[in-house]
């Protein structure tokens, strides 16, 4: 973050960080609301009803309410199950997007409106996100394969075996790293 955002410019009386690499929370809140609205726009497909979940998503990003965050995520999941055609490649984006939304809402829900988050903390959150996605994305791909080629037993078995092997390799690698 540039020095202009380091808060020392205005004498507001608040304590402000005095170093680069601090991201203001309003940027994270804006990104969270934007991500929720984008996912909602995909599943609501141009319907005027998108205004309601969009408002909810923005409210969940601004207000410290776990209820609003839960309703927003549930609306997205239910809308995906109802409106999205089976086998849509949007599944991969939704698996990542819903996960990111959950993490961001959980991060913001206990913070006051004003503040900062360090880049290294964001990187830590990103690494943790990637660790989950590295297993969730192959599962999503397997689900798409199951949906498309449900009658082909060979493809299904190969996919399941590949995902299980991938998961086992990840777990064993993690254990090795810990030792």
């Amino acid at each position, binding site marked *: 973050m540039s020095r202009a955002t380091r*808060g*020392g410019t205005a*004498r*507001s*009386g*608040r*304590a*402000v*960080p*005095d*170093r680069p690499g*601090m991201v203001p*929370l309003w940027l994270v809140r804006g990104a969270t609301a934007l991500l929720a609205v984008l996912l909602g726009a995909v599943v609501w497909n141009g319907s005027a009803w998108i205004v309601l979940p969009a408002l909810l998503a923005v409210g969940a990003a601004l207000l410290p309410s*776990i209820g609003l*965050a*839960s309703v927003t*995520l*549930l609306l997205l*999941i239910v809308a*995906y*199950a109802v409106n*999205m055609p089976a*086998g849509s490649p949007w*599944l991969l984006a*939704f*698996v990542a997007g*819903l*996960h990111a939304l*959950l993490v961001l809402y*959980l*991060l913001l*829900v*206990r*913070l*006051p*409106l*004003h*503040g*900062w*988050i*360090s880049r*290294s*903390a964001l*990187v*830590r*959150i990103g*690494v*943790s*996100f990637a660790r*989950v*996605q590295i*297993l*969730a994305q192959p*599962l*999503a791909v*397997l*689900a*798409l394969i*199951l*949906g498309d080629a449900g009658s082909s037993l060979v493809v299904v078995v190969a996919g399941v075996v590949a995902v299980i092997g991938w998961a086992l390799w990840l777990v064993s690698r993690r254990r090795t790293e810990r030792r």
Partner: protein
Amino acid sequence: MTSPARSRRGGTHSAAPATRSAGWALAVILGLVCVVAGLVSGRPDTVALAAPFALLAAAGRRSGTAPAAPAAAPVTDPVTGSAAAAATPSWAAVAVRVAGPRDRPAGGRLRLQLQPADPLRAGASSDRLVTVLLASPGCPPDAMVLRAGEDCPLLADGPPSGEADILAYGWAGSTADLMEDTAFTAAESVRVSILPRPGALPARPVSRRLRGLAGTHRSRRPGEGSDVRSIAPLRPGDPLRRIDWRATARRSSDQDRIMVRGRFADAEASVFLVIDQAHDLPDRTADWFSAAAARLAPGSLHLARSAAATVAASYLSVGDRVGLDDLSGTRRALRAAAGSRQLEQIRARLAGTEVIPRRRRRRDPAPPQGSVVLVFSPFLDAEAARLLLLWRAQGHVVAGIDCMPPLVRTETTAAQTASVRLVLLRRRLLLDGLRRDGVPVFTGGSPDADVVDGDRAVSGDRPAGLSGPELELGAGLLLLSRETARRGGAGAPRGPVDPTATPPRDGR
């Protein structure tokens, strides 16, 4: 400047080891909804939406059953003396210390250092976050999310002078996947002590009754000073080194008389500074009625501290003795002494002054004989005026320093306006009464400006005379010094004195 600032850290009030967060429950619920929706509709892709939630829930369940990270030793509560009931995980603990610079400019911000504990040293993984909540006085709280062990410098407002709590803070820890967190732990506020800065050194009025045998002032006693008192014939007992051969050659034509030069003795002045700490009036009148946390704005007490530090530095720079007392009678008076260490003691004592209601005292403060007494007060009640008149009647050179800051009228109700008008009217009557009785009262200057140089202030449009209204400190002291020198013919400085000279070290 900050004194060795104190940052009281770590008194744990509510702390608990890391537990599963509400997010873990939310992840479980969302995962179940996805699975049920997928099974009902027969769509594996909807079931796949549950994958990240299920993995997060599994991670939270695993860490929730894992042994807790080592906890910090319980901290003894500084108020009750009892150990805190629960200890916070040491990887989540945060300390705030004042990082300087010590010589900050007036009105500048203090630099603090936010220091979360090192998670690796505490036996936890570095894959953790620490959320610190900060609140400056009169401001809503702010959040700062840091990686565990990551330092962060802060800029915070400090008081213009004196001691004040400048930052309340607390912390909570969490894992990077936010499935596990610790309870919020509140720490004690960060408290700093800012020493008042001496301004430009004003003139130094002194009493006629000077004491001591060393100093920069000329007394009326014969002695070993540098100023010539008389030239007289040599008498038995006169030291030979006083013989003035030129005067002998000039006055004794037949060389039958030897002339010796007599000198005045040097002496030091004694100054007694009295602070009225019963009130601290902010410059905004609406703040007089506010029950909220006080802003870190300059008030009458800051003006009193700055003016007293300036006067003390001025006298101590020429070797005079300066003492300090307060009208509230809560602490023992600082005895008059000279030297740079005395200046530091006075500044430290001034920084420690805070609003204390005046209490009944058995006897009035007694200034040393022959001292100049300066009372720094906003003159809201008659006590300061009474003591000024008393000390003046006892023969001291006295002056009042009006420390009311330039007011910004921000009252919001008619009752507040009426109250402020009454207070100001009473103050005006007190000050007019003092001036009518011959006690000079000077204004203490603006809170953020140094005390103006006396010569420049006098040369302006101000009325020449101690009874003129609204004389500033520098001009008033200059006029008072001229007045005392004219009346007594003594106490004048021995010659040109460098006002920027540093006081002699430990010359008590």
